[in-house]
């Protein structure tokens, strides 16, 4: 039997509105010590607890949240929701195509985002062009919102490049494979935004205020770099949103292996607000992330968001989740699907007709075809790529090695024979 009162006490550590009034806030004191199994039971729930911010429930019912307004008129609301629906459907479509391409031997690996479309599109659409984002390696939906063409994700997974886009031009850093590394890099970038005077109102500059968002998972919260990032961000008031997608699983390890308490409550220990949002509710993710980015842009950062969601597919195409989790768990989460609730709301309220849904499906299919064709057409770079951009400035030792290798290759009659 779960001690619900204790579980609730954890999820109500401090609401965001307490900020300033209570300072960092103290961790709640349990009135009765729960057993480990009780804690596990509480955290395993598909419900994110009473503090979960949700505006579009799994049944497709919309209830605006007073603290996290969407800032959209009734007139513009249908277009907003249809746009988010389109984003999610298209992203899911090329994500499924990525899985298929791996199975067919066209990609060495794919990292599926299935189930996390709302968490990523909601956050991604909350970003302004001047905002910087630091992804892990699953943020295909955020990349989409940042204007990265899905085909630009393919070189990493086909093994032709380590990064397929321009991080500077897009304000979207390269994928970070080492768990948690990018979170402290994001904090450093945000420290730079503050040093530049790009945060808060400026009397001397007309450029818009900026903030940074760092994406990471529940597993990464155990990494020292995430801790150090939060310490640095707090110390320097860095305008960074720590956006944790708690998808319940770090490969085979459940979230309770990472934390005894709900992850968003960790923010209190660092002295900044933490919010848990329904990560399968795209409108809630949008509203909460917009609020958090605005807080940071206006100088009130940092902020932590825990998007409570679920990794509906494997960790990667190399993973086999049947070894460590039950199928009924995924079935339970299917009822909370991030796209279906939007479709229901649009259809039930007459905001979109069949032609709209058909059109999105057709667009998704076109994208998948283009994605596939681009993937298959991706060619292996010349071996000289190994030597380029290792350094920004001339490096005689590497130049010599490259010349030796070039000479070695030239010794073959058919050069393609050595690196085919």
């Amino acid at each position, binding site marked *: 039997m779960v001690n619900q009162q204790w579980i609730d006490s954890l999820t109500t550590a401090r609401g965001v509105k307490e900020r300033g009034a209570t300072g960092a806030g103290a961790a709640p004191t349990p009135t009765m010590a729960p057993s480990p199994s009780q804690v596990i039971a509480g955290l395993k729930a598909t419900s994110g607890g009473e503090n979960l911010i949700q505006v579009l429930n799994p049944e497709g019912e919309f209830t605006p949240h007073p603290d996290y307004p969407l800032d959209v008129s009734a007139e513009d609301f249908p277009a907003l929701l249809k746009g988010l629906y389109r984003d999610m459907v298209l992203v899911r479509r090329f994500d499924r195509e990525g899985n298929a391409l791996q199975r067919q031997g066209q990609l060495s690996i794919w990292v599926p985002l299935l189930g996390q479309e709302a968490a990523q599109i909601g956050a991604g659409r909350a970003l302004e062009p001047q905002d910087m984002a630091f992804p892990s390696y699953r943020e295909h939906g955020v990349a989409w919102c940042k204007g990265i063409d899905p085909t630009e994700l393919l070189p990493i997974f086909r093994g032709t490049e380590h990064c397929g886009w321009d991080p500077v031009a897009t304000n979207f850093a390269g994928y970070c494979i080492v768990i948690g590394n990018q979170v402290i*890099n994001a904090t450093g970038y945000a*420290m730079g935004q503050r040093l530049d005077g790009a945060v808060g109102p400026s009397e001397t500059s007309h450029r818009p205020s900026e903030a940074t968002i760092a994406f990471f998972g529940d597993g990464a919260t155990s990494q020292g770099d995430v801790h150090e990032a939060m310490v640095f961000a707090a110390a320097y008031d860095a305008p960074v949103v720590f956006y944790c997608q708690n998808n319940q699983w770090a490969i085979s390890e459940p979230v309770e292996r990472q934390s005894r308490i709900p992850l968003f409550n960790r923010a209190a220990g660092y002295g900044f607000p933490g919010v848990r949002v329904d990560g399968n509710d795209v409108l809630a993710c949008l509203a909460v992330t917009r609020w958090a980015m605005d807080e940071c842009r206006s100088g009130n950062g940092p902020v932590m968001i825990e998007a409570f969601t679920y990794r509906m597919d494997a960790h990667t195409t190399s993973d086999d989740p049947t070894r460590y989790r039950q199928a009924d768990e995924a079935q339970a989460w299917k009822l909370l699907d991030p796209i279906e609730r939007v479709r229901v709301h649009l259809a039930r309220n007459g905001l979109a007709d069949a032609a709209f849904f058909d059109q999105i499906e057709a667009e998704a299919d076109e994208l998948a075809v283009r994605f596939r064709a681009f993937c298959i057409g991706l060619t292996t770079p010349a071996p000289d790529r190994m030597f380029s951009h290792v350094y920004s400035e001339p490096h005689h*030792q590497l130049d010599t090695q490259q010349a030796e290798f070039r000479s070695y290759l030239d010794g073959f009659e058919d050069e393609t024979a050595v690196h085919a």
Partner: protein
Amino acid sequence: MNATGSAAVGAAGVAVVGMSNGHVSSNGHASAPPTTLAKALNMGLRASMENDPKVLVMGEDVGKLGGVFRVTDGLQKDFGEHRVLDTPLAESGIIGAAVGLAMRGYRPVTEIQFDGFVFPGFDQIISQLAKMTFRTQGRVKMPVVVRIPYGGGIGAVEHHAEAPESFFCHIAGLRVVTCSNAADAYFMIQEAISCDDPVVFFEPKRRYWEKAPLDVGAVVGSTFSSAIRRTGTDVTVVSYGPSMPVLQAAADAAAAEGRSLELIDLRTLSPLDLDPVLESVRKTGRLVVVSEAPRESSITGDIAARVMEEAFYSLAAPVLRVAGMDTPYPPSKLEEYYLPDLDKVLDAVDRVLAY
């Protein structure tokens, strides 16, 4: 501070004898005022900060205290807390934040307080700092300096006397350099800061307080090159950083016995600048390589291999190495046995000559 090296610093310590790779190897202007290595670094940092507002200094205790070795003394007072950042005690955080700041257009100069404390930051150095430019096809540059006081001979406790430079030399994307005297310190730190690549900058901590002439107006070429410190005809002796004064003392002692040593200060450990070494070995036929770092899988081994590959027929004897032991750095009362010293270098010189 040190039994073997201190006597050799000063006038002899920066005896300058010419060019390598077309670069002026150092300066030794007679009227240049004697300056400690630590002060020269401070002056170099100051010059870089004055020249470029994007240069930041960040690390533990670098601000108000001026660093535990006072290398950053006065910088926060003069440039402000927004340019000289006392950071939380987290090396991964220091390097990781510097990576983000560099992406933002800054040129962070990070300080790791002691050699043995760099390892919490090792992941960020290896995984992000060194690879970012390659990963992004040159779109993101990483003009970050990682300053590390290194080496033994100061009677310190564990983790305060290590020579970890080989780890960094093994990593593509990093440049690794080290200074051995005040004049080099002043110019090399500025060259490191102006470099668009990440530079791991090793500072010989037991030489911080040794003085040498520093002419800040000297015209120098790239200091990321090997420098010939003394010409000789019998044996080439190569080292860098804290062991250079040991080499000078050894060369003085050898000269008294009628043996002429040619001394080369590598200054750049990655990439190595081996042309002056090869040229010297072709003349002397004998090579001794000296380093405080453990001998196994080290820079000294790499130099021996490269010389064997490229100057095999010039060698009259095997290349010998004088290095730290393949042990953890010992308790300080034993460090005189561990470190390369005058006798060890002369012993190696005797052996290559006797071969």
